[in-house]
């Protein structure tokens, strides 16, 4: 993935120089082939016999080789010239977007992030002015994203075309000091990061291209590389699954409707029907993820979406970030709960976008990346599924690895990392934090059905963070309150010992409604502005809670 800065500094002139060079070489080699052919003809008229035949055959081979290499250089010329043109186009678009920033009013940061200059709107800007500024910022960010995507697409296209010129098997991968053997699943993310860093850029790129699923799913590999690998993997998988689906449909058609007493045919028919259904599920999951990656309406956020992990099988799994957590100052991982699945991931991404925008508004000077972590099989329904613990128990190791991976790949000073969960997701984050050191700064439980860590669990029992950074909220009309201890202690309880912040009524799913005050409080927590978070009402509190 080409970055904002890399595109700004890109030099199409040097590429055009290379294109000119290979064009001249192509012409000369073609000429050498023609000249060789002239001498072959000359020899044929002045020499006969076995030696002459052998020489003629050898020279024919040389002529073909000269022509082939000339053609190869010619292809390189076309590829590189096209890439240079695309870079120029993308840079033009980028510079045009940057020049629009003052009219937001705002500016474009070194990393391409767009910042609204809120102070330019006056001391008390109207909601309309704020909205207009956000829309302007989104438009500029959109242009920047388009420019970077155009350059990246051209770059990737050129790369694959260049590999095809000599054949992928002929392009050597060397110069890195590391081994290209991919670490085993479950390897410590910090160890994975060291392995990745030891590879040359060429080795990394080749692994992304040849093993997109392994690289895309590996905690400890930087997010931009995982995103690139997963996008490649998703496209490849879609092609493959569609082919399988067409074959399964054909098989079903060939078997035909089974007659009443043909057991064998009935069984074959049922198997084929199951295959079609399973593949339909995968196609739906893949399309749903792709739809998110393709979306242009980012609800006011100016950040790019990254596909950090996914699995298309069954209910599907997906981990999608708004912005790049590796470079963000604040990172929020949100774990959704009961009913969350990949076909409905759009609603979860909307929440991530909302939280990212809220955090940017709360602290415009620092970047926030928000992540939807649906890397587990969430319960399908409240009853009977959500009363069982195995969903969050099964999720814990993966969620812990993911959190450790975020620390391993983060660049620059440590970010403020927040892990939050909603509903069953709250039990999931609580259970995981009680059993693994997640190196998180904040834990937020929204509408929890219990801490998922036993009846004696308190806010002091997490491996991280400390009780001062264990947060919870629940709306007064949220029906989860009737089952708030189904998975252990209720984090809203005074006895639990955490911090509670208020939320407006809106039922079980209203916490991200546009005017719900909970959004602002979450934004202040994730940006580390703890003193701005008001105290909410705790169940069983003997008196007003204060710190």
């Amino acid at each position: 993935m080409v970055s904002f800065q890399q595109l700004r500094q890109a030099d199409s002139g040097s590429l055009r120089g290379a294109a000119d060079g290979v064009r001249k070489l192509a012409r000369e080699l073609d000429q050498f082939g023609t000249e060789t052919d002239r001498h072959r003809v000359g020899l044929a008229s002045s020499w006969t016999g076995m030696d002459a035949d052998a020489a003629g055959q050898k020279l024919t081979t040389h002529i073909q080789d000269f022509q082939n290499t000339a053609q190869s250089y010619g292809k390189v010329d076309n590829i590189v010239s096209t890439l240079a043109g695309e870079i120029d186009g993308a840079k033009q678009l980028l510079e045009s977007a940057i020049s629009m920033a003052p009219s937001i009013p705002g500016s474009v940061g070194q990393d391409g992030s767009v910042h609204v200059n809120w102070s330019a709107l006056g001391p008390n800007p109207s909601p309309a002015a704020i909205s207009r500024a956000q829309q302007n910022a989104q438009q500029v960010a959109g242009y920047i994203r388009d420019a970077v995507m155009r350059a990246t697409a051209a770059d990737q296209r050129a790369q694959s075309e260049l590999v095809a010129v000599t054949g992928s098997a002929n392009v050597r991968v060397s110069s890195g000091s590391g081994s290209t053997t991919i670490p085993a699943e479950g390897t410590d993310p910090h160890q994975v990061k060291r392995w990745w860093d030891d590879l040359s850029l060429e080795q990394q790129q080749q692994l992304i291209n040849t093993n997109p699923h392994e690289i895309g799913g590996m905690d400890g590999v930087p997010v931009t590389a995982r995103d690139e690998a997963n996008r490649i993997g998703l496209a490849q998988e879609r092609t493959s699954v569609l082919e399988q689906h067409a074959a399964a449909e054909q098989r079903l058609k060939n078997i035909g409707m089974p007659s009443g007493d043909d057991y064998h045919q009935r069984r074959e028919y049922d198997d084929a029907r199951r295959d079609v259904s399973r593949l339909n599920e995968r196609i739906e999951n893949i399309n749903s993820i792709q739809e998110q990656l393709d979306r242009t309406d980012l609800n006011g956020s100016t950040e790019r979406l990254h596909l950090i992990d996914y699995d298309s099988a069954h209910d599907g799994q997906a981990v999608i970030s708004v912005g790049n957590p590796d470079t963000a100052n604040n990172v929020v991982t949100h774990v959704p709960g009961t009913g969350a699945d990949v076909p409905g991931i759009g609603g979860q991404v909307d929440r991530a976008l909302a939280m990212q925008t809220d955090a940017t508004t709360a602290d415009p000077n620092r970047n926030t990346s928000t992540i939807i972590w649906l890397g587990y099989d969430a319960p399908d329904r409240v009853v009977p599924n959500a009363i069982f613990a195995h969903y969050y128990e099964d999720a814990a190791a993966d969620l812990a690895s993911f959190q450790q991976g975020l620390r391993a790949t983060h660049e620059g000073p440590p970010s403020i990392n927040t892990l939050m969960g909603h509903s069953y997701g709250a039990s999931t984050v609580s259970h995981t934090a009680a059993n693994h050191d997640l190196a998180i700064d904040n834990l937020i439980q929204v509408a929890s059905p219990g801490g998922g860590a036993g009846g004696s669990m308190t806010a002091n029992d997490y491996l991280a963070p400390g009780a001062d950074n264990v947060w919870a909220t629940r709306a007064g009309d949220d029906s989860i309150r009737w089952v708030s201890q189904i998975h252990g202690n209720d984090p809203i309880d005074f006895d639990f010992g955490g911090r509670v912040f208020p939320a407006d009524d809106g039922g079980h799913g209203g916490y991200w409604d546009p005017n719900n005050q909970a959004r602002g409080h979450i934004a202040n927590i994730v940006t580390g502005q703890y003193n701005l978070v008001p105290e909410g009402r705790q169940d069983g509190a003997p008196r007003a809670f204060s710190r």
Partner: protein
Amino acid sequence: MQISEQRVRSHGARLRTVGEDAESYLRSMAGPLNQGCQGNDGFVAVSTLRQTLERLSHLTNNLALESQRTGDRVVKCAVNHATNDAQHSRGFGSLNQQLSGRG
């Protein structure tokens, strides 16, 4: 077998020159091509371009050397033929003399 020794020798020498010219031209282009692969950090195509050009350069250089070798062999064939022809001539001459002496 028929051969025009002078013409074959001449074509062989020119084929060798084609190979030498190709090798020389390739060498002269190495600098500019290498320069074109510098910079543009973050563009994966640039590192692939470097690898592709290295690979093509290797193939082209081998072809240029092979072309020189083929030219050499053609010249050698012509020279060998001339040498054999002279030896055969000398052999025939000697045989003629011996036969004449017996007569």
